[in-house]
């Protein structure tokens, strides 16, 4: 049976010895987060804010442990200052995995509005970033991006498109 995207992600993280996973949760990331918690290889835990997670992964890398931050699009939008002045300036391979909200069926205008800032911010920072849309490309893009980040000591971001994950879509306006 074909592996789901979150199983591929877990396998790639393990193969690259990426153990430390601080995150701010997202519905789309739920199966990956659950799998990370279930596997003793990983140390996954929540933080109060995405900036904290960037600091934790940066510190861990400098002390010999590899990590990755999980977040959603709106969380990424809080990060420009710390990405510029910590991983970009110090050349530390902080890895970000961003569950892409705000596009392809988004129901929340706030998410849709902040989505427009993500790629321009990554481009302005000069950060390597790749969007993963297809299951058959998931392993290659994740694995090569992680490896390159570690080998070149530069941060990188992986964007999980709704085309890959299914996203978080509702078909009509919810009034509740």
């Amino acid at each position: 049976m074909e592996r789901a995207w979150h199983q591929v992600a877990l396998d790639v993280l393990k193969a690259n010895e990426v153990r430390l996973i601080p995150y701010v949760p997202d519905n789309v990331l739920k199966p990956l987060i659950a799998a990370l918690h279930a596997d003793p290889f990983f140390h996954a835990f929540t933080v109060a804010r995405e900036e904290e997670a960037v600091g934790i992964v940066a510190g861990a890398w400098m002390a010999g442990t590899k990590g990755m931050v999980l977040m959603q699009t709106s969380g990424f939008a809080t990060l420009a200052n710390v990405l510029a002045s910590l991983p970009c300036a110090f050349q530390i391979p902080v890895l970000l995995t961003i569950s892409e909200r705000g596009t392809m069926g988004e129901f929340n205008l706030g998410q849709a509005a902040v989505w427009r800032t993500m790629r321009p911010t990554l481009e302005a920072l000069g950060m390597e970033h790749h969007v993963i849309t297809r299951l058959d490309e998931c392993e290659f893009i994740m694995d090569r991006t992680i490896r390159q980040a570690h080998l070149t000591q530069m941060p990188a971001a992986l964007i999980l498109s709704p085309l890959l994950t299914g996203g978080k879509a509702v078909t009509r306006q919810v009034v509740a």
Partner: protein
Amino acid sequence: MTAAHNAKRMYRFDLMQRLVARLEHEEAVIGGIGNTNFDLWSAGHRPQNFYMLGSMGLAVPIALGVALAQPRRKVFAVEGDGSLLMQLGCLATVATLAPQNLAILVLDNGMYQITGGQETPAARADFAAIARGCGLAGAAWAADEADFERLVGQCLTIDGPHFIAAKLDDQPPVTQTERDPPQIRDRFMRGMGAKQSKLPG
């Protein structure tokens, strides 16, 4: 236990010298942005020091990452009060993960000294009480220099996480850290034993 208003106002450079003098086992020290890490630098560079240049508020998270990566090494985060205010949530994270080898030292001068001495919006805040409220039960103010040394000694000998707050006077930093981020990172990684290189450090 010393209350915030009873804590003696001390000289940051003196406290940094006292801290560094106690470090005999290659303990890591993460110095927060600005004057905090300037005085850590002035107290004498060690390969186990990391000097933040930007990313205001991340001294504690960076130190937490180091502490999680190397549980047998003691790790100090030295952070300013204005910086900690930007990232108070990290205290709850530290209390939840409870790394035994992490100590947080907050140097509270009540102002943004590097930008002209404007007051922080924390005139009524008590950082040790905030830390205790987040779950760092032993968080304490240093009453004076001798008490500071006693508390640092506890950090070095007793399992944490620890939290020490110290009130500062308004003396400026002695000098400034050399601003070369990749070099600072490279030296720190060697100091942590996380990188070997044939190039001179």
